[in-house]
């Protein structure tokens, strides 16, 4: 399962530090973790204050669409992870296909999110809406956090999809190839982080009722 590709790299090649590149990406991901982490702290405190109202809020979300979107993101993490194996084996077209499927799954997630938000807006639930402001304070907080946290997450999905589209161009042009694919690894790391954030958002907003 573990092979050494190092011997294949000719001596005197341009200097490259893949571990350093990946570490830079991981450090960036930690800042993302703290960004969302701060919001999770806010969620925890307000939930502690208004447990019953958070439960009422959670009942208004569609668990089915949330579950489908969880499966979509988990599958997209699978395909982007497999794209790295493909490029390591020199299968350029397969790698392109797998990254392409990942982007399609990202779009599917966003379409579901659009319908979900649209449905909420139509039933009068959006920030500062009269309908929402008539609700008890805990529910206003719940929906405020729901829109901000899933909104920021959706923004990350959009950015991740764009990053992966750029990776497809790199693979096509050959600057990501069998011997040098750290860029694709960095893009995939970002995508997996977006998945992990959702893994925590999903139960906290959809399942706790």
């Amino acid at each position, binding site marked *: *399962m*573990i*092979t*050494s*590709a*190092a*011997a294949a*790299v000719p*001596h005197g*090649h341009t*200097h*490259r*530090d*893949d*571990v*350093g590149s*990946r*570490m830079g990406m*991981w*450090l960036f991901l*930690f800042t993302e*973790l*703290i960004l969302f*982490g*701060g919001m*999770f*702290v806010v969620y*925890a*405190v307000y939930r*502690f204050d208004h447990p019953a109202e958070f439960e009422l809020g959670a009942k208004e979300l569609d*668990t089915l669409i949330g*579950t489908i979107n*969880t*499966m979509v993101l*988990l*599958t997209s*993490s*699978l395909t982007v*992870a*497999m794209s*790295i*194996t493909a490029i*390591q*084996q020199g299968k350029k077209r397969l790698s392109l296909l797998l990254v392409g499927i990942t982007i399609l799954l990202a779009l599917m997630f966003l379409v579901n999110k659009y319908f979900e938000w649209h449905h909420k807006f139509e039933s009068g639930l959006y920030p500062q809406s009269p309908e929402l402001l008539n609700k008890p304070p805990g529910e206003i907080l719940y929906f405020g956090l729901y829109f901000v946290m899933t909104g920021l997450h959706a923004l990350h999905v959009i950015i991740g999809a764009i990053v992966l589209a750029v990776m497809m161009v790199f693979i096509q042009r050959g600057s990501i190839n069998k011997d040098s694919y750290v860029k694709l*690894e960095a893009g*995939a*790391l970002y995508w*997996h982080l977006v*998945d*992990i954030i959702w*893994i*925590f958002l*999903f*139960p*906290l907003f*959809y*399942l*706790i*009722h």
Partner: protein
Amino acid sequence: MTEHEHQHGAEAHVVSYGRYVLIWLGLVGLTGATVALAGIDLGRWVIMTALTIASIKGLLVLNEFMHLKFEDRVFRIFALVAGVVLLIFITLTFFDYAFH
């Protein structure tokens, strides 16, 4: 590796498609479990079970999909520090909050 090998981190870890699919099946199974458990009234254990399952899923993604288990030990130490910092944030916030 030759003795002339200077390149840091050139050692590639090729994970089989089968292993990735297995991990994905585990993640899908855990999602099913957490949705099923949400339908049962577990009282005060609702949050604990949901967060435990989410943490297991997160660790699977970190270790398997993100290759954390293949990286140098310093990556895991960094990840641990980041996690502990977040935990301290949450704990201190609640200490402050509880004694207001």
